């Protein structure tokens, strides 16, 4: 294959004291990939995302983004190179309205955010794009509303909108449907269906409906190591996977 992978991970390892939370993990995401990452609680899924995004330093391993090595970079530098994430627990700016949350991310992407004087046209441009992005994800109506007053499902949508606003090459979705009442899961399903085709996406999710609908490939993580990877149907049928994980849930 000539073109470099959107994201390529080799031998990623991390120990917390004697506990190994990531054991030589290898993962490849090609452009436009839709990969699901599953595993029981404590398997190291969120740790893996934190390692990828630079919120935790790995002990060993290589991470390449579009062929460029990034494991030595800080979290914010990785974001600027095209690796974005959403958080399992919302980390929104709760005092701002939804549109400003997206606009602040756009200002950062466009490198307006160092501007100290008012520069209205640039900020207006950020606001307009922010509104367009909210509409694209089916949340155009919440732009004016203060985030702390939004229902949880809408906040989850906003997390995704902010991730997309960074125009990432790779987007890591950390449990986008977590905590959403079942009456609102369709919002997330629709948002996921509308994600741009060229972005490589790694999705972590406990909700198997979401995973099996969305992912073309699934990686099973168990005790910090990749247990298995394959097509969703194969994963669902695998006895070992069922034993460690799926067996405890209704598929």
């Amino acid at each position, binding site marked *: 294959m000539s073109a470099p992978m959107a994201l390529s991970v080799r031998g990623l390892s991390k120990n917390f004291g004697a506990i190994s939370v990531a054991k030589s993990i290898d993962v490849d995401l090609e452009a436009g990939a839709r990969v699901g990452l599953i595993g029981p609680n404590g398997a190291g899924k969120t740790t893996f995302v934190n390692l990828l995004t630079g919120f935790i330093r790995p002990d060993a391993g290589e991470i390449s983004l579009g062929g460029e090595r990034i494991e030595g970079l800080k979290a914010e530098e990785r974001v600027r190179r095209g690796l974005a994430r959403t958080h399992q627990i919302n980390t929104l700016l709760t005092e701002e309205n939804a549109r400003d949350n997206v606009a602040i991310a756009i200002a950062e992407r466009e490198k307006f955010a160092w501007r100290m004087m008012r520069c209205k046209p640039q900020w207006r441009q950020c606001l307009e794009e922010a509104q367009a992005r909210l509409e694209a994800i089916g949340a155009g109506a919440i732009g004016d509303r203060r985030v702390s007053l939004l229902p949880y499902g809408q906040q989850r949508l906003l997390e995704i909108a902010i991730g997309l606003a*960074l125009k990432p090459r790779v987007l890591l979705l950390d449990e986008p449907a977590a905590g959403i009442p079942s009456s609102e899961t369709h919002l997330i399903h629709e948002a996921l269906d509308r994600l741009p085709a060229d972005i490589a996406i790694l999705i972590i999710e406990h909700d198997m409906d979401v995973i099996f609908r969305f992912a073309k490939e699934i990686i099973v993580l168990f005790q910090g190591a990749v247990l298995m990877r394959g097509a969703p149907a194969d994963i669902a049928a695998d006895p070992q996977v069922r034993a460690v994980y799926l067996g405890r849930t209704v598929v």
Partner: protein
Amino acid sequence: MSAPTPKPTSPLGEMTGPGRFSLVGHALPWLVIAAFYFLVDDYLGLGTQVMIWVLFALSLDLALGYAGIVTLGHAAFYGLGAYAAGIFSIHVSQDPILGHFFAIGVTALFGLLSGALILHTTGVTFLMLTLVIVSIMFEIGNQARGLTGGDDGLQGIRLDPIFGVFDFDLWGHTAYIYTAVVLFIWFVIAWRLVHSPFGRSLDGIRQNARRMRAIGTPVWWRLLAIYTISAAMAGSAGALSAHATKFVGLSVLSLLTSGVVTVMLILGGTRRLYGAFIGAAIYYIVQEWTAQISPYFWEFVVGIMLIATVLFLDGGLMELGDRGARLLGGRRRAGGGE
């Protein structure tokens, strides 16, 4: 844009935090400052002091209010600015403008270096380090008698007329106007700063630094930048104090000075800029009036006011204005509300 474009914001642009200002709201404090000059001639010295504290509180609002840098060390910058301006006038040049810029430069540099040293920490650790820095500065000011006059204070400051024209008169007319102009310039800078994309990112860092890193914000650099600007501003206030009184007392570097400016800011309201005006003014007015009753009484009154403010007025005394405006049928901010 087509369809439901963003709702046009008010003419004053996109605000952060609570409080939108009408033109009247903007004009009011400056009209008061101008009126004071013409009406209360006997108290110009007091008015100058209040404006200097307003500027100092304004500098703290940038760091503490907007960026969420919880510091008790701002007296280090205020005091350093005062000493720098005073020492410059004694040993180098009596030009007040030159001395003022020198003081700003020195404090900005000190803010940059001390910020670089301690801004990687947060919370209580950071607070302790700011206390350490201001304590060290105090002790240096105390020990370096040859330069600072130690606890006798720095005396013998002499100033040329501003631009060679406006002499610092005994009645404080020049000092008052000079201070008002400097305050206005800094206020405009601060206002534009907090409403810029840079200011929005600081507000974001205060609310959730992790979120800001996740959208690619170099959090440490942003904080260092505003810390430096805030230091320069506090140093400017110190320089004004040295010039207006032609004296620098060691107390400018004391922890109590940091405490007083923090009380003023919280009393008036953080993240509002004009909160610094209200807080410093009220503090001084209460001090003047109640001290006539008993020399210790004013601290009691200020204490009660502070407790009441913190308990009942989330946004400081400025909140009272907001509530009043709302009662009068002012438009509620879209998506806002406390």
